[in-house]
């Protein structure tokens, strides 16, 4: 089939599937001739084939389907009654179509398959309401038991006898013989005339294409010269199902033989069982390898190494048997997008990248619905109407891109659109309006965090409920489904530019790579799908690097504040690590990162996930258990649940402690205050209260744009006003830096960026000696870390960047920066 054009190939595959359905439909139709539904379905199938064949210039195919369609439409409209005779000619038509398709598949052309007989039979069956069935029915029936009634058969063959004369191509006889082979296979060997055909047909299978046509022609001629002219439809149309099936098997067999010979069908249950056994084997292997590592016997060590290797390969092999390309589920999506697009009057182009990416069949099934939902969502809400797109300066045609790829033992599937994106402000407002969170909580969230709100149950941002989506069920269900198979979902969006939904799915469910860690003397497994990196800090470094933001511990990971969660705290245990070392597993959950502090990291190993009893599940922290290499049981941490539990309480605690801090600060001016030290150029140092720091970022200098005479950068889908602290405070820093160090401060959904030259340190503001040297934009100065440091008037700095910053929420003084707090 190499030479076949993609369109033709697709047409063939689709048609074969449709024809199988057609056979069932037609037979069922005989049982209930009145079923309009079935008739319509048959009509549609034939109609589709006719349309495509006309388009692809398969004239004979078009001819036969055309006349069939005529008859079907009259049957459907009730102008004709379905008699057994008419069913027969319809089946005959299906067989002819099949033969034509097989011929196209084999050689790329219609070959010598004759259609005039069928066309005549259908026309006859259509016109003669009562008389016609008589000659038509016996004729095809006679064709099968040809040897018994040669006289009758001859009448059936009569109209087709011209066939070889008409189309004497080399491929033609091959086709005819192949179809006969089908009959021969099914026919009892005792049939004298058909049996000899079988060897000839078999030679088709065994000899290369180039050779077989001639050989066959000879063979076929020699065996039964009068039969070579017989059109393939003739043996099949006998209404008996057996023959129909034989013909269909033949049609398929002919073209798909190459595949059929090299593959076998296996029960999925059997594969599941194999998978389980392999899981056990992997466990045992782990145990043996670990034990042998302590031995000195070289033979044993060698054997264990081989076992290790073989078990791995076996595992891989068994996993492969369950793998299917993601295209299996993607192939339905173009249709979904097209139909939806039409319905919504949007023009959308669907692009697919990585359609050959494979994943486990079970997972594939599980991902199907969520993926379809995401695609529908993108079409409905993501991509704007053509006129809106034009207004926004985008091409009228929207692009929806599906991407799949393997990435460190996971499959990453993305659904990306170039639509309007999700506006965090709108989204946040909606969440507050729905009572899903408080305005105060919202004001503390970064745009990226706000985006994750769409996964909350009962959330839908569609301003209008459409037919397609926007009924308020959706993303939360998608998320639950994805998580139930151990996957994760995250969403990224850039207002005006588009949205990306990213699914991370494990390759397989049963065996997962995991990191084993120790905490309070026990070992726990963390699936690597959630793991980003490991950070190990020695006591000295940990003392400085682990800082507190309003009572919550954070670690500054490459400039970004990483909230820390101590596993011992979550589990209610006491750490056994007393040397001050801190080991952080940086985990990602729902687009957010956090650091899990554990006692120590043991290693990474492939673990086999074992179900745990209901009582364990109810705890909501463990996704299962596993048996480690040394035979001990380890619990598998459910990172999503952990994040939800830990981060939520952390946030509320932090908010509580922030409130407490505010009160305390009001009461006493000697309140300890943590300060961020930054250099602003010219040797000057500025202290900024850490409470007012939301994030530390780096921004490329060339990303800075101008709005009026203000500077802004695009940041996480929003426009972030910039104040350059050196200019604001009249210092002269370097201006030609490529990367700007930026302190982001967010409050009430607005953010500003404060540019400094360098982030220096975080210090305690206590015992600082203050002076009242007052300057524009400063609250004063103090000695911090043995150096005189200016205290920034954060409020003034922010207003310099965004004069409207506080007026957006006039009700409160900004929560993070009460003036009293700044007085160190």
């Amino acid at each position: 089939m190499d030479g076949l054009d993609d369109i033709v190939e697709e047409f063939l595959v689709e048609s074969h599937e449709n024809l199988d359905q057609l056979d069932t439909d037609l037979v069922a139709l005989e049982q209930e001739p009145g079923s309009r539904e079935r008739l319509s379905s048959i009509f549609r199938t034939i109609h589709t084939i006719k349309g495509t064949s006309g388009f692809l210039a398969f004239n004979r195919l078009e001819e036969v389907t055309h006349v069939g369609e005529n008859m079907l439409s009259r049957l459907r409209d009730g102008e004709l009654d379905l008699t057994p005779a008419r069913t027969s000619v319809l089946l005959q038509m299906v067989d002819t179509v099949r033969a034509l398709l097989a011929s196209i598949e084999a050689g790329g052309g219609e070959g010598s398959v004759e259609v005039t007989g069928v066309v005549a039979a259908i026309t006859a069956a259509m016109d003669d309401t009562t008389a016609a069935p008589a000659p038509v029915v016996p004729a095809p029936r006679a064709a099968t038991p040809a040897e018994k009634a040669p006289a009758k058969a001859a009448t059936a063959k009569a109209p087709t006898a011209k066939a070889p004369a008409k189309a004497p191509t080399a491929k033609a006889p091959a086709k005819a013989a192949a179809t006969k082979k089908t009959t021969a296979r099914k026919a009892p060997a005792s049939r004298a005339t058909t049996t000899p055909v079988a060897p000839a047909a078999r030679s088709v299978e065994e000899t290369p294409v180039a050779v077989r046509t001639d050989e066959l022609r000879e063979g076929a001629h020699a065996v039964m010269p009068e039969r070579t002219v017989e059109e393939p439809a003739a043996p099949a149309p006998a209404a008996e199902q057996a023959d129909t099936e034989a013909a269909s098997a033949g049609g398929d067999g002919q073209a798909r033989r190459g595949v059929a010979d090299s593959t076998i069908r296996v029960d999925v249950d059997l594969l599941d069982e194999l998978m389980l056994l392999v899981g056990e084997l992997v466990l045992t292997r782990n145990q043996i390898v670990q034990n042998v590592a302590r031995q000195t016997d070289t033979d044993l060590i060698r054997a264990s190494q081989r076992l290790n290797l073989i078990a791995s390969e076996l595992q891989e092999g068994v996993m492969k048997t369950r793998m299917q390309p993601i295209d299996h589920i993607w192939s339905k999506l173009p249709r979904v997008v097209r139909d939806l697009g039409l319905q919504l009057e949007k023009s959308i182009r669907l692009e697919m990248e990585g359609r050959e990416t494979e994943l486990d069949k079970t997972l594939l099934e599980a991902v199907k619905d969520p993926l379809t939902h995401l695609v529908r969502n993108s079409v409905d809400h993501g991509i704007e109407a053509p006129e809106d797109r034009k207004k926004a300066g985008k091409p009228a045609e929207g692009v929806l891109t599906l991407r799949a790829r393997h990435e460190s033992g996971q499959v990453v599937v993305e659904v990306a659109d170039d639509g309007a994106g999700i506006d965090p402000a709108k989204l946040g407002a909606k969440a507050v309006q729905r009572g899903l969170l408080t305005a105060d909580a919202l004001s503390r969230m970064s745009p990226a965090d706000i985006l994750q709100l769409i996964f909350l149950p009962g959330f839908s941002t569609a301003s209008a409920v459409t037919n397609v989506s926007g009924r308020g069920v959706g993303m939360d269900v998608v998320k639950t489904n994805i998580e139930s198979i151990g996957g994760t979902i995250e969403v990224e969006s850039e207002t005006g530019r588009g949205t990306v939904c990213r699914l991370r799915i494990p390759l397989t469910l049963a065996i997962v790579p995991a990191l084993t860690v120790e905490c309070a003397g026990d070992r726990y497994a963390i699936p690597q799908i959630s793991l980003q990196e490991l950070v190990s800090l020695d006591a000295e470094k940990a003392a400085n690097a682990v800082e507190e933001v309003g009572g919550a511990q954070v670690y500054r990971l490459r400039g970004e504040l990483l909230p820390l969660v101590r596993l011992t705290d979550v589990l209610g245990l006491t750490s056994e690590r007393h040397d001050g070392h801190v080991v952080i597993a940086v985990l990602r959950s729902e687009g957010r990162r956090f650091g899990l502090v554990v006692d120590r990291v043991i290693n990474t190993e492939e673990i086999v996930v074992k179900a745990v009893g209901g009582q364990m599940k109810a705890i909501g922290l463990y996704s299962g258990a596993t048996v480690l290499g040394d035979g001990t049981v380890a619990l598998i941490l459910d990172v999503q649940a952990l994040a939800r539990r830990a981060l939520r309480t952390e946030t509320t605690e932090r908010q509580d402690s922030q409130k407490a801090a505010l009160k305390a600060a009001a009461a006493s001016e000697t309140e300890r205050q943590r300060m961020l030290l930054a250099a602003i150029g010219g040797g000057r140092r500025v202290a900024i209260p850490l409470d007012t720091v939301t994030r530390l970022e780096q921004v490329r200098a060339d990303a800075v744009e101008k709005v009026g005479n203000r500077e802004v950068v695009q940041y996480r889908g929003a426009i972030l006003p910039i104040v350059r602290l050196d200019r604001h405070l009249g210092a002269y820093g370097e201006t030609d830096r490529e990367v700007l160090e930026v302190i982001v401060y967010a409050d009430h959904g607005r953010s500003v960026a404060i540019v400094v030259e360098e982030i220096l340190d975080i210090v305690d503001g206590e015992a600082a000696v203050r002076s009242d040297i007052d300057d524009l934009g400063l609250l004063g100065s103090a000695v911090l870390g043995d150096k005189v440091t200016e205290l920034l008037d954060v409020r003034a700095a922010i207003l310099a960047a965004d004069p409207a910053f506080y007026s957006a929420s006039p009700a409160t003084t900004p929560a993070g920066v009460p003036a009293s707090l700044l007085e160190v």
Partner: protein
Amino acid sequence: MTAPIRTTAPATSGQLATFWLDGDLYGIEVEHVQEVLRSQQLTRVPLAPTAVAGLINLRGQVVTAIELRERLGRPPRPEGTDAVIIVVRLHGEAVSLLVDSIADVVDVDAADFEAPPDTLEGQARDLIRGAYKLHGQLLLALDVQRAVSA
């Protein structure tokens, strides 16, 4: 709790596998018992109900272990004594019970059965179906179904 509903305690004849726990003899239907194990390494489960002693590795299968002393409201097992693990299979799922020591399989007669005395109280009342009056010893029939639903 649903204890009062049990007005007609099922008095059954048959075989009970018996074991000792804090000086008392208990029995569970022998057909529930899958196997008995010497002490095993337990993996504790933080935040689990207190009766869950941990998880054990039963030939590659992870099985929850219930501390029966805790379930019955008895004091903890004295230091230095190892528990014996009885693995029971209920509805196809294996669960294990930690007991003090294992005793014989005993044939019991329904005629010897009596409902738990009214003085029996607390959580133990939910778990004990009644007592078989054996020669010189009471055998307490444990409702294994309830015992494992910690």
